[in-house]
């Protein structure tokens, strides 16, 4: 089997600030990690290969330092890693990101199974996975919390608002996964050594048959027109220290007024 995992390097904190002028993220001084849901995807891919044999390839688009995350993925069990990096990719929205990823997957593929986290903790759009699948013209599923191989495809369980849906998808297909899929293991020492020594493939814009006008910010259908801090909406009555009891009585009164208590 040939499995591809799409991963994203994200800030390891929720406290990222924006440059209000430029509308871009201030990255200085912030550590990075592999997007947690992508770790689930790597682990799911690793387990598949362990049972079925084959190769596990990881891909990530981002600045050159994304290399660290790719090495970590190799330490976790991936066989090959591809860094997709070029200044021309900068500022890509989900469409322009998916455009590049789908071309790289076509170039290096075909893959039986493509896995990715349901969404990244920074952008939280969850759009790139389905967009890549649509551009590749393959079936896909999302919010996957269980995967079982069945004949020439997979049976997946999707976690939806009020329950679970079960679907069969034939290979090739793409799945975006949730955090309850499995328990990713920490890389072993030998894994870390493998990751450190691995030779990564690098793909740049000139390796891909995409017109310049479809790359990066230029090729992004969406534009950030404004960033702002949300305005304070309510006046908070604060109670502290010896006033706490007063505050509790105030809450009880409010609950009664609202016919809740």
């Amino acid at each position, binding site marked *: 089997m040939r499995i591809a995992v799409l991963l994203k390097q994200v800030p390891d904190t929720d406290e990222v*600030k924006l440059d209000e002028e430029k509308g871009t993220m201030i990255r200085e001084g912030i550590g990075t990690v592999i997007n947690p849901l992508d770790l689930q995807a790597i682990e799911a891919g690793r387990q598949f290969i362990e049972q079925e044999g084959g190769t596990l390839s990881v891909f990530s688009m981002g600045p050159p330092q994304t290399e660290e995350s790719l090495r970590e993925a190799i330490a976790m069990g991936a066989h090959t890693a591809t860094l997709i990096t070029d200044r021309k990719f900068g500022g890509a929205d989900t469409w322009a990101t998916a455009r590049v990823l789908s071309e790289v997957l076509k170039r290096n593929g075909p893959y039986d199974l493509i896995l990715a986290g349901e969404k990244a903790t*920074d952008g939280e759009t969850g759009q790139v996975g*389905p967009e890549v699948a649509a551009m590749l013209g393959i079936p896909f599923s999302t919010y996957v919390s269980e995967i079982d191989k069945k004949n020439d495809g997979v049976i997946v369980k999707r976690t939806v608002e009020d*329950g679970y849906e079960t679907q069969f998808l034939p290979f090739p297909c793409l799945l975006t996964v949730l955090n309850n899929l499995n328990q990713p293991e920490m890389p072993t020492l030998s894994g870390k050594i493998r990751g450190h020594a691995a030779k990564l493939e690098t793909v740049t814009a000139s390796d891909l048959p995409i017109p310049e006008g479809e790359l990066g910010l230029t090729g992004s259908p969406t534009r950030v027109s404004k960033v*702002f801090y949300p305005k304070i*909406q309510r006046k*908070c009555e604060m109670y*502290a220290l010896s006033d706490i009891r007063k505050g509790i009585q105030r809450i*009880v009164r409010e609950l009664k007024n609202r016919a809740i208590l």
Partner: protein
Amino acid sequence: MEKENRTIPRIMVIGEVRRNTVLPVTFELAGKASELAAKIGGAVDVLLFYDRLDEPVEPIFQAGADRLLFVEDSRLGLFNQEIAVKIGLEALRLYPAQIVLAGATTSGRTVLPAMAALLHTGLTADCTGLDIEPETGLLLQTRPAIGGNVMATIKTPSHRPQMATVRPKTFPKPAPVLRSGLTERLELPEDCFSSRIVPLSYEKVSEDYTNIQDLDVVVTGGKGLKKPENFALLEKAAHLIGGGVGATRPTVEAKWVSYPHQIGLSGKVVSPKFYLAAGVSGAVQHLAGMQTAEFIVAINKDPEAGIFKIADIGLCGDLFEILPELIAALEKEREGGE
């Protein structure tokens, strides 16, 4: 072949029918779409596809739709994203729209990205605000941005349609207006119903699980609770006031609480009459999921916590002292009242 000219800009709401009923987010979006349509001199189409609908369609017009486009087919019982994408694309081919909106549900967030990819257009996820830019008539799509304490307004200047998903309960359910509209059944080519995906089953979550979105009272805990066991305190408080328990993303990621309880941008949006947040710092993502609650109480030891900025009452102190005291006060009230 297009079925009409493009003189009037149209907004298409891709509605959602689940278990034979129209999801509330469809009405919320029809209402918002009709506000937007008024600003661009446009009209609102609502698209529904289902195997069976057990309710009248008039409320869809009363919420703001000018026209209902529907597909009724026995093969639409279980959700199939591949078929949903084909239907959406075919509907847009027949009835072109300037703006396409859908609920940011597990279905909408699955179907719309694939549609946007194939239409070569932009899509903004989880909008908390939609408006029209007066000078350009463009859709302004506002959502919390990059993990931080900011909001971003996004436009799709030159690609069409402009597409956005919106979390359920972000916009109020519109007060019904007495009006009617056109209903058109879409007859789609057979290919729209062919799929490589085979939906096998749907299983409702067992246990006596209630969707926290449907409750009047929600009591939410964050990392400030320190240990998963301490959620028992919240459950006790919630039980006393007939509420459900909510949780922040970090507590769900730490597996203290299951995902259906998660409130915020990547969880559920709730709009209860009474919301209590204990040990919740108030990240923008969380606020996006609860700021429309009617009354908000926050308990936090940090006087600077963001949650206080949107609370009506703030109790600043140790929640392990305050919560038991609150529970005792609620118990006393209940005994006295009965």
